[in-house]
Structures are given as C-alpha cells and as structure tokens.
C-alpha cells in the first residue's frame, strides 16, 4: 500500500515567516507551509488509524493478555530503538519489569534535537495516539503506571496536541484507573522542554524532569534500575513506542518480516530543503539509500557533495557512497557511518568542509553539559583550532588534532563528546584533498 500526503501546518511557522510575525499575529493567517509524507513499503507509522475508539480496541486486547505474552511478542518483533543507539526495546522493558519497586516510569523521549530531524514531530502532531497507546502498552509490560512525554520546547504545537490527546483519553476512560476493567492504572504527564540539545540524552533528560541541571549520569546504574526519581524507568524514543500498537495487533513475527534480519520494521527518514521534495518518508528497513535520495526526495536542488545522516553525531556520507548504503543499522555501521535517527542534512558542493567541522565543534561546545572534560574542553579547543585555521592561516598539527578527537571518542561520558569524532573522521577520510591545506603532515 502506498500512502502519499502533504501535511499543511496551520499554526506552525518557519523560515521567512519570521519576517511576517506582526502580520501573522494580527491576522491569525494560517501558514502555508507544507511538507511531503510518503510511505514506500509497509505503512506502519504513516497509516491513518481511523476512528479512535476502534483503534483503542488494540489496547483493550493487550490489557487482557498476560504481560509475558506481550513481551514475547515484542521479542519476536526484534524492534530496536529509533532514537539513535538501536538498542533492543524488549530488553529494556524486561529489565524494568524485573526491577524491584512499585513506582516505575515510561518516559517518552520527544526532545528531537538533531538539526534536520522532524519525524518525531510528525508522529506527535499527526499520529499522537500511536505514541500514547504505545506508552500505555509499554507501561503494562514493564509494570509502570506513569508515562511522561518530554517534548521539545520548539514544538509548541506538538505539546498542545499531545496534551489534548491525553485529555481525550481521560474522558474516554482509556487512561487513568482500571483501564478497560483490566485493573491496570496508567497516568500521563506532558512536559515541555526548555531548549537544550543534551536533554535528548536519556539520563540528562531524567535529571531535567527532576528539575536538576541536566547533566549526564554515570551508568551503571542504568535507568531501568534507577531512573526518574531513582525509580526503574524505561526511556524510549517516540518512533520506537509508536510501533507498539502495530506489533500488538499484527504480531511480532509480522513486524519482523519487514526490513532486514537485524533491523526489523520501518524507519521514518527526514529529508531537508536541499532535496527537490523535502519531507518525511517511511521506508522498510533495508531500503537502498539511493531510492530515498532519488525516488522519494527526487534528487537534490543543487550540487551536493555530502549528506550528514543521523544528526550532528551521525556520519558524514560522501555522495559516491550512496549506492553502497541501505537504510538499516548494520549497513551504516559496516560502512563506518551511523543511521541514528535518520535525518538527512545536505552539504552543497561549494560549502567548505572545514567550516562545517568548525560548526560541529561549536555546536558541541554550546550543547555540552560540561560534566566530563574531554567533551567540555575538547569541543572548545577543536573549535578554536579550526577557527584559527580558517581565519589566520594556522596549520593544525595533525597529531594533536587526532589526539584530541581520539580523547573525545574514548574518554567522553556520553555520545555527545564521544560521537562528534565520527563525522570529523569521516570528513578527514573522504575530504582529505579539500582539508589537507589546513593540516600539517
């Protein structure tokens, strides 16, 4: 089945709308922003779920099934986290289920901070009930009675939509006490974030909800053992959780039959404005990247030399690598890249890679939580070196630079400092001809 849609955002404004802010406020004129949504393969997340009461029959059936059976279904599905790390969802829920304690939490990570990523936003605004039902089912399996949706502050519309959807569920009795007479209680809390990229990191996110400075926590203990308020907690990405209604209604095996052996199901890919048709595309895992670029995105609007895939900590993929890659965790890992959250940001032919690297270091310096020195100091020192090379003709000592990125990679506490070296190394490897003038041998 093929699904094609144009999402019109009536209350979301972007780009040059900033120039019209006074008029927009006066006239309340709806924005004409549009982005394309298409499914290529199996529509799981882009499928319209129709009447909400009919849709929630999936929950009713799930709550009348034993936790063990649902967990087995989830294991069969092989679903892996969509937030970046690709960790088994069943493993996390099981670990939380087995942890001691009466109070447990399911936290939905809707902080989607990767520049160029807006697939979680699509789910939050267009498929809110897939997410909310997924959270209730996850709560039932893990024995958690509280669900927290932590939504990026730059998505005010998503915050309103999710809060309204939660209110509707309370009205219908699909959340709260004794849902569908199952004896299971579940309550939601919607939290609006306040603008910090690091809050997407799961332990920083937990500290943020607690009202502490959002510094990354040392693991172990893992959140499933001691998470929010030191209680067992599962943190999952929006897209991961939104897959649960499909898995529970269609079976884990059916989900596992989509995609590849180790990357099951589908993935939402966000394409940026350098594509002829920017938008959100749902593809079966394993779909060739060339299909995404050429058939779905309809190619590039201008000459592009590389794509930054999977957020700022993802890999920098040169254009000639497109034919070797498919949209799944293993294909990217094998080629030395990272699928991450599968956002694609393009670098045009005439844009200097050295400036892009400086930007990445500056981004990391700005967003670093400051807890560990390799990232706190390394990001700033790296930005300084690149700045001097761009502005003052300074030759960066290659050995020093390599030491710096290796220290960040090995010594950082989380994947912000630890992940930055990946695109930097990709750049040094694939764009050596362009970069070598800035480095001493």
């Amino acid at each position, binding site marked *: 089945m093929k699904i094609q849609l144009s999402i019109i*955002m009536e209350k*979301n*404004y*972007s*780009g040059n709308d*900033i*120039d019209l*802010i006074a008029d927009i406020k006066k006239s309340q004129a709806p924005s004409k*922003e549009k*982005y394309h949504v298409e499914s290529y393969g199996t529509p799981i997340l882009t499928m319209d779920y129709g009447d909400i009461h009919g849709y929630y029959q999936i929950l009713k059936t799930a709550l009348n099934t034993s936790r063990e059976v649902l967990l087995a279904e989830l294991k069969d599905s092989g679903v892996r986290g969509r937030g970046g790390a690709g960790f088994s969802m069943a493993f996390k829920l099981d670990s939380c289920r087995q942890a001691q304690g009466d109070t447990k939490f399911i936290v939905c990570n809707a902080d989607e*901070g990767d*520049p*160029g990523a*807006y697939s979680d*936003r699509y789910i939050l605004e267009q498929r809110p009930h897939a997410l909310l039902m997924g959270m209730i089912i996850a709560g039932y399996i893990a024995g958690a009675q*509280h669900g*927290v949706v932590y939504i990026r*502050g*730059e*998505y005010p519309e998503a915050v309103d939509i999710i809060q309204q959807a939660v209110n509707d569920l309370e009205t219908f009795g699909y959340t709260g006490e004794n849902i569908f007479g199952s004896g299971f209680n579940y309550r939601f*809390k919607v*939290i*609006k974030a*306040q*603008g*910090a*990229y690091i809050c997407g990191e799961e332990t920083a996110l937990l*500290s*943020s*909800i*607690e*009202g*502490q*400075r*959002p*510094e990354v926590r040392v693991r172990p203990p893992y959140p499933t053992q001691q998470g*929010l*308020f*030191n209680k067992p907690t599962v943190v999952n990405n929006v897209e991961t959780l939104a897959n649960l209604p499909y898995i529970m209604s269609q079976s884990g095996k059916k989900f596992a039959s989509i995609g590849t052996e180790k990357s099951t199901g589908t993935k939402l890919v*966000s*394409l*940026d*404005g*350098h594509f002829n048709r*920017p938008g959100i595309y749902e593809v079966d895992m394993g779909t060739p990247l060339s299909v995404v670029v050429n058939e779905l995105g309809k190619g590039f609007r201008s000459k592009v030399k590389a794509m*930054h895939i999977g957020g700022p900590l993802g890999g920098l993929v040169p254009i000639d690598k497109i034919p070797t890659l498919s949209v799944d965790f293993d294909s990217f890992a094998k080629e030395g890249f990272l699928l991450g959250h599968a956002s694609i*940001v*393009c*670098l*045009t032919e*005439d*844009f200097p890679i050295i*400036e*892009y690297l400086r*930007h990445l270091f*500056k*981004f990391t*310096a*700005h*967003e670093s939580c400051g807890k560990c020195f390799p990232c706190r100091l390394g990001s700033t020192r790296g930005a300084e070196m690149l700045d001097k090379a761009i502005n003052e003709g300074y030759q960066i000592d290659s050995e020093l630079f390599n030491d710096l990125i290796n220290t960040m990679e090995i010594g950082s506490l989380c994947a912000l400092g630890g992940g930055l070296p990946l695109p930097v190394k990709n750049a040094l490897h694939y764009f050596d001809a362009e970069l070598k003038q800035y480095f001493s041998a």
Partner: protein
Amino acid sequence: MSKNISELSGRKGLERNLFEQLGIAAEETGTPTIEALESLREEFLVGKSTVYGTASFYDFLRPENQGKKGLCLQWKCMPICRNTGQTCQKYPRISTHTKSEKCVV
C-alpha cells in the same frame, strides 16, 4: 548531585514538578525572576545553586534570552542556510531561531 539530594529534589514528583514550575515562572518574561527562583527553592527544598544552575542552563530560561522564543524550522532547519550558503553564526543550535530577533543569515 548526590542520590540523597536527587531524592529530595524529586520529593514532589510529577504532579507539581520543579522543572515544569521553572518553565511556568519564565512564561511572562522569558526568564524566571530571582524572587520566583527563591520561592521555588524554598518550596522544593533545594539549594540556590540547583535552581539557579538549572534555570541558566536552558536556552529558553536563561536571562540573556529573555523575551525570545525558539521555533523549529522543520525541513528548512539545516546547519547551512539555504539562502546564503553560510553556517548560522548566531545560533550554534541552528534549529533555535527567535521570535523577537530576525534570523541573521
């Protein structure tokens, strides 16, 4: 932060949540006033450094961003401006542009 303090600060849990209250306190002016921070500190039994340190961490709460709002640029959000081909110099966190200030690129 030690486990004990963490437990204290979470004393009121989700219902009346410290982080949420910080956001509410900033709604009027874009940053919580010193008085609001003091009263939250007392209510939640946490140290000054916790509330001040928290409020100053976030782009939307810190005093220098008072009166600004962040908006997601969706598919136009990219490190390199589509119009000029330059990286955004003003906001390293590119997806955060502000309401009261024009995008500089």
